């Protein structure tokens, strides 16, 4: 049982960190804000939960487990909500997702910015 838990937790940790890594690279390399937030927030949620679950397997029942659970809940709620809020706020402020034809340019040119709602 111990070994099984260890293996599960390791798998979770490794895959979680893999997702985090991809998210980080995406955050750095993607061309505009919306693709970046896509990369970062999705992998972030998955990666963070996997790592936390992996830790939970290590912790066993107890206060530590409860705290990890709390962090997990919190990061699920807060992370997703924050991403949503960010995306919405940026959209409202006039940042526009990249269309396929202007993918080379970084961000939106000055003149094409939609006016304030």
């Amino acid at each position, binding site marked *: 049982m111990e070994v099984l838990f260890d293996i599960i937790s390791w798998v979770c940790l490794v895959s979680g960190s893999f997702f985090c890594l991809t998210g980080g690279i995406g955050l750095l390399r993607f061309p505009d804000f919306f693709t970046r937030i896509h990369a970062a927030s999705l992998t972030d949620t998955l990666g963070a939960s996997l790592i936390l679950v992996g830790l939970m397997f290590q912790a066993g029942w107890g206060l530590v487990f409860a705290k990890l659970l709390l962090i997990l809940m919190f990061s699920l709620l807060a992370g997703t909500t924050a*991403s949503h809020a960010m995306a919405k706020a940026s959209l409202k*402020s006039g940042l526009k997702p990249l269309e396929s034809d202007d993918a080379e340019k970084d961000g939106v040119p000055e003149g094409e910015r939609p006016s304030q709602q």
Partner: protein
Amino acid sequence: MYELTALILLVVMGLALVRAFLGPTLYDRILAVNNFGTKTVLLIAILGFLGGRPDFLDIAIVYALINFISIIAVLRFFEYSSKRPMDEES
């Protein structure tokens, strides 16, 4: 195993930090900071296990909380002063 995870998290934090420096828009920075924050939470959790005293997860909770609150604060900041939304580049 913890070490590996911690290392990867550090790398990701580095990447987020680079994004935060580079910009180019404000929201990129906010995103990077947010990402950096969540990674810090994880890192602290891992460090707790690494050091053999996992009962210090309180700090990770506080980090998560603070991270969330500061993101909201920042967003609200821009609801007020969104006259010039992308005045970041220059």
